[in-house]
């Protein structure tokens, strides 16, 4: 059972999970599923989207200050949680937007229940194994030097990558908690579901796949091939952005999405 709270509430409860959530705007409901780290409540990307939609941006269990019950540990759990959240919303259909790890989640949810969605947007999504067995598609963020991960994650790392020395202790604690949760959900198989590729063909709704042109975590080529598995999906590059265009190019990214939503 989902209890929705009136804005500007910052928490939402789904069954036994207590999630922090950003909720802002009016209009059609847009559920945003974040990537490696939740967006801050004042993130420009969310604010831009909220001018044309009711944005709901929860932090996944174990991320930020969202709780994670002891037996909530897999992508299967995440997919069912968000299906339950969606079912609990008043809307007939919602718009689903997912970035990176959240893009993987969004693809899984869409493959399972696209009848509850009116639009799907995937941004630099993880979740598929496309290369051969000796060719990884997704940069191994856990076994790669952080300097390399940083370089490959941003178009302009020096200006856009997080400055850990400038972060508060609280922010660093959240960052480390996110990191643990990512490892729990995504260690093996590494950030993909070997079964998902076969079922993307079920997604019967307008889909936009957006990709940072400089994404070195998952390349634009991977993104194009990803889009090819979803019937009718459009693919577009976001220039001067790496793996996190929602942070690096929020205006350009929001423009693409709002255009696609018909605004």
């Amino acid at each position, binding site marked *: 059972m989902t209890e929705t709270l009136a804005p500007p509430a910052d928490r939402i409860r789904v069954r036994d999970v207590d999630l922090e959530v950003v909720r802002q705007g009016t209009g059609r409901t847009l559920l945003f599923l974040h990537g490696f780290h939740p967006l801050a409540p004042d993130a420009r990307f969310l604010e831009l989207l909220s001018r044309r939609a009711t944005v709901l941006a929860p932090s996944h269990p174990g991320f930020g200050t969202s709780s994670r019950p002891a037996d909530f540990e897999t992508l299967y759990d995440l997919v069912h949680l968000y299906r339950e959240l969606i079912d609990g919303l008043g809307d007939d259909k919602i718009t689903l937007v997912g970035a990176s790890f959240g893009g993987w989640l969004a693809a899984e949810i869409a493959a399972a229940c696209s009848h509850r969605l009116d639009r799907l947007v995937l941004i630099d999504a993880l979740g598929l194994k496309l290369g051969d067995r000796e060719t990884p598609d997704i940069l191994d963020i856990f*076994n790669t030097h952080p300097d390399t991960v940083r370089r490959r994650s941003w178009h302009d790392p020096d200006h856009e990558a997080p400055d850990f*020395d400038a972060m508060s202790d609280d922010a660093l604690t959240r960052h480390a*908690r996110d*990191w*643990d949760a*990512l*490892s729990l959900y995504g260690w093996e198989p590494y950030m993909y579901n070997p079964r998902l590729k076969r079922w993307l063909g079920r997604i019967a709704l307008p889909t936009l796949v957006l990709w940072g042109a400089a994404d070195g975590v998952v390349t634009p080529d991977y993104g194009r091939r990803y889009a090819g598995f979803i019937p009718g999906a459009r693919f577009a590059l976001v220039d001067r952005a790496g793996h996190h265009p929602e942070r690096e190019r929020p205006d350009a990214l929001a423009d693409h999405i709002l255009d696609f939503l018909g605004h």
Partner: protein
Amino acid sequence: MDAWWMCEVPYPHVPKDVLDAADSVRASLPNRWCDPRVAAGLFDEVIDEYLLCDEMGLNIGATEHHAGINSLLGANPMLVSILARQTRKARILSLGTLISLRREPVRIAEEYATADVISRGRLELGFVKSGGTEMASANANPVNNIERYWEAIDLIGKALTHQDGAFSWEGKHFTHRHVNIWPRPWQERFRMWAATGDPHTAAEVGRRGMVHTLVLRGHEGTRRAYAAYRTARAEAGLAPVSTDNFAYSAFVSVGDTDEEGVRVGEKLLWFLNTSLKSAPQYAQLLPGTAPPHIAGQAWRTRPKPQSGGPNLVNAEKGVATAQENALKLMSTTVEQAMAQGIMFAGNPDSVYAQIKKFHDDVGGFGHLTIIGRTGFMTHAESEKNIRLLGKEVLPRLKAIAPMTPTLEQAA
């Protein structure tokens, strides 16, 4: 007190400029830097040293580490089996197969059963929690490592003691519908050891009555860990245990003179100053290594200033909670190592006195596990160390009787 000699079969011969250029000497260093002819010679020497231990009345132990200059022993049961066949008297401590990194505890139980039979009942089972670079080497999720650790111990324990045909195991991390191993082990029950280190795990080790092993922990950390064990037992209403349930692992170097013992002992510091270097993604940034409020600090590139000595927690896995700690640990001198109680070095009288003092300082322990050879210590130096240990120190250690201190005494 019993003494157990161990050597991890390190490979110190990678050129220094290669090690300096590498960000990690474990997990990612290509094995083109490991000359198999040199490695074969090292195995020959170390196995001969183990046989010498058997001759001298020392017990022996084997460890396991993967893909690094610190150890060529990626397969603990293999060395344990060799020692089972080649030694005659020594008890053989596996400390141990990294069970939380392997997919099939039942296979590990088969390996142990085989070694125990070959040794005619001399095997002891030690379980190391692991961490650091081992996670990448084994593709093992670091975040739930401790869950796999306990479940594997339980499954291995049952597989080794169940004599009535196939049983089923459908656990959280391991499933095996048909567990029935041959040969039946020689021993009806095994003494189990645990090397884990953190207070939370120490409590569980205590409740299970395992031999609680602290590695290079120093005075304060060891005292606290032993106390956590005892407290957990008391709180669970379990009978107190003697010091035979406690073990301590340190560098030991015995020479004819104090000067020789210390000079050769300094070579053992290679373990700290060269073999620990791990890239941040395998060490302080590895998920699940520390609670988030501590782990978060490791992301700073300019850590907050730290006072005091190096943090010895997880020293043997090369994990430190901050870059500064790692650097301090790596630059430990012989004098500091001896003062901290992580090295006992000198002539036989001095070494005995240092061990006895440390023993008394921490409330007593019944087992000394000796890191007896590492780095550039030579085969001849190692054999001399073993002979002096066996002849001059061991008899006095054996005279240290087990005791059962009260909680207040132990604290």
